[in-house]
């Protein structure tokens, strides 16, 4: 398994200038590059590929949308090394109107965790006052216990997301990573 999936802390940086699609770099806390992520352009169905580095020789993970347009969009994540689905992330359609909410599913499509924006108040401020207010997401297991945190850094130009995993055994770390990348790609695009 890649070093990326063994770390409890890393951060994702959206590449500022990309001609088509979007690109992300994933760094360890000491700024060592862990992975390079490419969101394919001209695809109606969202398709995100994670590689070991920018050479794109060693694929690590793929994230694919199930549908072109889906109110409660679901994204399947497959470990590119062994070709096995590790889980999925589904956006909670109605709940996300005022406050972004996702749920993480296991390989059998059963919910194992939820990902929710920090508070209703801050979510409303971000939507109706200024989207410069950084987002913060809490990942909780089905018992409501916090297992990870996604925290956006304040930066009006470049989307940076800090990922901290508190409990590695609760949810597959690959699914946590895939969810963080999705949030960077999709929520980042909305702002």
């Amino acid at each position, binding site marked *: 398994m890649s070093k990326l999936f063994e770390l409890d802390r890393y951060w994702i940086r959206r590449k500022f200038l990309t001609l088509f699609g979007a690109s992300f770099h994933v760094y360890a806390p000491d700024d060592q590059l862990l992975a390079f992520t490419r969101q394919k352009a001209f*695809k*109606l169905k969202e398709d995100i590929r994670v590689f070991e580095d920018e050479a794109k020789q060693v694929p690590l993970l793929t994230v*694919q949308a199930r549908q072109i347009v889906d109110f409660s969009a679901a994204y399947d994540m497959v470990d590119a090394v062994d*070709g*096995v*689905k590790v889980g999925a992330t589904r956006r909670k359609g109605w709940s996300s109107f005022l406050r972004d909410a996702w749920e993480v599913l296991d*390989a059998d*499509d059963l919910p194992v965790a939820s990902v929710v924006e920090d508070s209703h108040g801050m979510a409303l401020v971000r939507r109706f006052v200024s989207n410069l207010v950084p987002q913060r997401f809490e990942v909780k297991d089905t018992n409501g216990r916090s297992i990870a945190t996604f925290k956006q850094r304040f930066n009006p130009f470049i989307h940076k997301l800090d990922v901290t995993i508190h409990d590695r055994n609760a949810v597959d770390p690959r699914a946590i990573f895939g969810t963080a990348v999705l949030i960077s790609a999709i929520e980042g695009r909305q702002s």
Partner: protein
Amino acid sequence: MQIRARCACGHLWYVAQDLAGGLTNCPRCGKATQVDGLRDPLWRVLQGAAALGWVVVVVLLYANTGPLGALLGGAALAAILGLIYLMM
């Protein structure tokens, strides 16, 4: 309602409709397998609109330019629609 999934290993089985267009692990070999189908209604509307639009364009081309124009225009439009489909 259940939807068909067929793995590269040859195993065929049925999965819940929620997985339509997505991926699921094959119960036999364990590998991620594409599940048939694009279930969202918008996709069906788009398919219908594209087919209807193609017919209308071909009929208009036939009326205005004759059979050769309709043939070439229809083929060009079909190629464009095919390209869009491949991008999905």
